[in-house]
């Protein structure tokens, strides 16, 4: 039997595997398709990506792990993507030609908006995934807007059509009305069953344009992600825009001005396959041997060290933290290990910034800046899990600008840095532009909640009969106070939220101190709007009373502004703890019980002689109005 005949008899899946093995992939830019899959969180993006890999034979079915592209444990557990990924897939289309697909998976959370924008800049097209049971949500809109801003061709895909509550017609309407994207030809698919994935692959071939770029021009390549590999140095994910790059080239990063030697280039399938060269239009990885990830920044442009271009690709920006929190080791012996762990994590995360901080209550630790609350939670969890640290995080704060009498401006990231009220002329705080999508029934609820949080209403418009878009200006400090949870609960989970930085505005802010047994606890103080100080102080005292366990003595809790006490609660002294029989067989049990109690205490921090549990420092986030 001829080889051709054999191939014809094989199922399409095996054909694909053979095509891969034959390495028929072309470097002809007309047969390259670079695209991304974008979606609101939980709309099934990762599952769909997995199905694409499986159906193109890139990953054999038996090697499929759910959500293959999310490689970190935390990503898989939380069902979110934190780092960008790029996977090369060879697809034999119905026209018999083999196409090189580069599928770029972008982070799926508002905290990582900038990374998303750079990943999109590496693409010509995007698949917009909309959950057939949920319809268009806030990040669907935000991501579609970003894709349109990046001039991408958008293929709408309605996912989860296998679910009984799927409503593809409503989705189509919302995509057309809300996003002005024609949806008649939207692909109907199910990442779970694999239905419609073939249609998607064909749509990618026919609807997404091939990359354009000058093969003979000097090298320009976009870095859309980078990370540190202990054995190879910094590895970047790049998209070649003009020219080509090969092993041994001397290159230069335009924004950072750093030179490096190309030690390896290649593609991910998803295992890394080294190649001679990445040429115009291609996406792949680049091994630099550099030691510091901040030398290879997301959004920067690579060119040749000799005879390269001087003009960078547009869109580069420094990643800037929005939220700051104090991280303190519960056991002071872990200060150095914490420092080393932060150093290791920041090798891979240029958005993670930190500096030493000292607290009277908590001792030595670090003030760490994050892109957002999710970023913060993820980093804290990784520090605890991967590095075995026991950490205490103080309530997140934002960066305030304090204008002193006499004109000096201070940037403060921690309430402890706040000068005395007498020295302050005025204070500015960061505001966000927030976009909230809700069904019309909840407009009133969102108004109430957001005005309470000092939000300023901008506009409102109907995206469709069932979706209202509200725009607000809201202080970042209010947003990080469980605003999102409150928004979700006051709209029965329908609301979705997206935000971007707006700017600094003057605000009447004061520092609220919390005192335990009469002593101010710096790690519990926070900055609050003057009009809210009383309520927040009162509620926080009540919360702390619940959280702080009874001790051997009475513990008064007070909230005060500038020495004036606003509120007081008392944790009564403990009169008795567990008293059980302790005869022969009970002694072993008693030992275990006491060990458990000790482990519980390890999660607490002794401040003076008061044992304060972790949650106390986060209580301010959970303050109901």
């Amino acid at each position: 039997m001829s080889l051709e005949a054999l191939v014809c008899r094989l199922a399409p899946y095996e054909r694909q595997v053979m095509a891969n093995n034959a390495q028929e992939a072309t470097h002809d830019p007309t047969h390259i398709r670079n695209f991304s899959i974008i979606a609101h969180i939980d709309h099934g993006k990762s599952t769909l990506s997995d199905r694409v890999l499986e159906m193109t034979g890139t990953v054999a079915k038996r090697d499929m792990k759910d959500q293959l592209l999310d490689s970190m444990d935390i990503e898989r557990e939380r069902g979110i993507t934190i780092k960008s990924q790029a996977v090369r897939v060879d697809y034999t289309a119905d026209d018999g030609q083999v196409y090189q697909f580069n599928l770029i998976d972008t982070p799926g959370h508002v905290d990582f908006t900038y990374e998303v924008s750079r990943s999109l800049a590496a693409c010509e097209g995007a698949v917009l995934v909309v959950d057939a049971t949920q319809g268009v949500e806030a990040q669907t809109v935000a991501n579609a807007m970003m894709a349109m801003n990046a001039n991408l061709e958008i293929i709408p895909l309605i996912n989860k059509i296998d679910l009984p509550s799927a409503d593809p017609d409503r989705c189509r309407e919302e995509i057309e009305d809300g996003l002005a994207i024609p949806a008649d030809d939207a692909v109907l698919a199910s990442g779970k069953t694999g239905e419609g994935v073939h249609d998607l692959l064909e749509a990618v071939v026919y609807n997404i344009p091939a990359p354009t770029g000058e093969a003979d021009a000097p090298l320009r390549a976009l870095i859309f992600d980078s990370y540190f590999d202990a054995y190879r140095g910094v590895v970047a994910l790049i998209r070649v825009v003009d020219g080509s790059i090969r092993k041994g080239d001397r290159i230069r990063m335009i924004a950072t001005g750093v030179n490096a030697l190309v030690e390896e280039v290649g593609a991910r399938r998803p295992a890394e396959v080294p190649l001679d060269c990445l040429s115009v239009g291609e996406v792949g990885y680049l091994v630099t041997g550099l030691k510091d990830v901040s030398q290879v920044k997301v959004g920067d442009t690579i060119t040749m060290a000799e005879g390269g271009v001087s003009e960078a690709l547009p869109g580069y920006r420094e990643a800037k933290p929005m939220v700051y929190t104090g991280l303190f080791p519960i056991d002071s012996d872990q200060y150095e290990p914490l420092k080393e762990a932060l150093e290791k994590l920041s090798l891979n995360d240029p958005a993670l910034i930190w500096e030493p901080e000292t607290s009277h209550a908590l001792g030595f630790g670090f003030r760490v800046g994050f892109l957002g609350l999710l970023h913060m939670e993820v980093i804290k969890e990784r520090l605890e899990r991967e590095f075995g640290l026991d950490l205490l995080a103080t309530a997140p704060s934002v960066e305030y600008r304090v204008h002193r009498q006499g004109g000096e401006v201070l940037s403060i990231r921690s309430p402890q840095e706040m000068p005395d009220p007498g020295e302050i002329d005025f204070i500015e705080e960061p505001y966000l532009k927030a976009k909230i999508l809700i069904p019309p029934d909840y407009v009133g609820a969102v108004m109430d909640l957001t005005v309470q949080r000092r939000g300023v209403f901008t506009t409102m418009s109907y995206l469709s009969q069932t979706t209202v878009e509200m725009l607000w200006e809201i202080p970042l400090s209010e947003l990080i106070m469980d605003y999102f949870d409150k928004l979700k609960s006051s709209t029965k989970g329908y609301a979705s939220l997206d935000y971007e930085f707006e700017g600094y505005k003057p605000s009447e802010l004061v520092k609220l101190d919390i005192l335990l047994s009469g002593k101010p606890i710096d790690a519990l103080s926070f900055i609050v709007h003057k009009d809210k100080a009383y309520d927040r102080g009162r509620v926080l005292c009540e919360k702390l009373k619940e959280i702080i366990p009874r001790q051997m003595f009475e513990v008064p809790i007070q909230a005060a502004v500038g020495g004036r006490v606003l509120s007081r609660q008392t944790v009564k002294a403990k009169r008795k703890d567990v008293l059980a029989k302790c005869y022969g067989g009970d002694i072993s049990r008693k030992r275990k019980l006491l060990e458990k109690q000790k482990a519980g205490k390890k999660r607490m921090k002794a401040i003076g002689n008061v044992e304060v549990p972790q949650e106390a420092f986060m209580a301010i986030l959970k303050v109901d109005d």
Partner: protein
Amino acid sequence: MPHDSYKALYLHIPFCVKRCGYCDFATQAVARDSSLIDEHVEDLCLQIRRKAKEGELGEIETVYIGGGTPSHIGMSRLSMLLYTLSLSMRLEPDVECTMEANPESLDERMVRDIWALGVNRLSIGVQSFDDAVLQTLGRAHDADAARRAIAVAQERFDNVSLDLMCGIPGQSVESFAASVDDAVCLGVTHVSVYPLTIEPFTRFDKMVARGELEEPDDDVEAEHMEIAERILVEAGFHRYEVASYAKPGFECRHNKAYWTGVPYLGLGRAAATMTQNAERRMRVQDGVVTDDLDPRQMAAEDLMLGMRMSEGVSQELIDRAAVLIPRMSEVVDDLVDRGLAFRDGDRLKPTKQGWLCGNELYGALLDLAP
């Protein structure tokens, strides 16, 4: 391993007429005529014989037959057990031999017969003299039965102990105080007072989780414990352990063995055995090693257990521990500073506060050698 002689023997009878709502002991509700009980008693007798032949019972000074409810298994099995015991070790009046009994299964004949067979101390599970409270607990007896059982016991035994429980949902201060008063009036020589603890997987645990039962309140329990002490001390009892009160000379020697690092042998399912020499202490239960301690841990444990008793621990014991544990004196000073312990001559003793917040006190001592 070569080990110090056992001084205390515990025999476990894991059967009851019914299981009480709070109970998480190793016991089961089994009908009195069940062959399970026969098998268990026969097995116990064989184990006693074997240990006797191995020479492990030669220095036993106290015996405790506990449960479950030993009185539930009836006189014929008890006589077989006690007869085997008297053949296997020296069961003279100077050896303290306690048996637990519940009011519903203790009668005149049993009292006379076990007395004749060498039992010289009876511990009766009364819990309360308030019928409503007994019903909450799910006990098989009422207050009258309890009074009758005590009177019957006192016909032969002058060493009779009662268990009382406090902090029971629905139990008022008055109800509890009345039960303590009753114990005093009935003329028993020993009383144990325990606050109700909700143990995991018990019926009470489920009821608390479902909101059908109020969780015992620490403040109420603390108040009850204080009332018990006031009444009993006034009546001439001495609080020799955090939960144990005795008339002079009636302290339970067997229980004191547990708190003073004396090696004990336990026979019968779920009974714990503590075997030790100068280098090592092991506790074994159902063939499983539950603790394996080195000399430092032994020293710390002896201090922890010793502080359950009003006499506390001697300076000599502390000094011996200090040789192994350098921060010993620092921890003792801290306990005294925090009002959990006080020095009395050459002894360190627990304060009232130290007893009430026992986990603080014991935790600090156990933590000397984790």
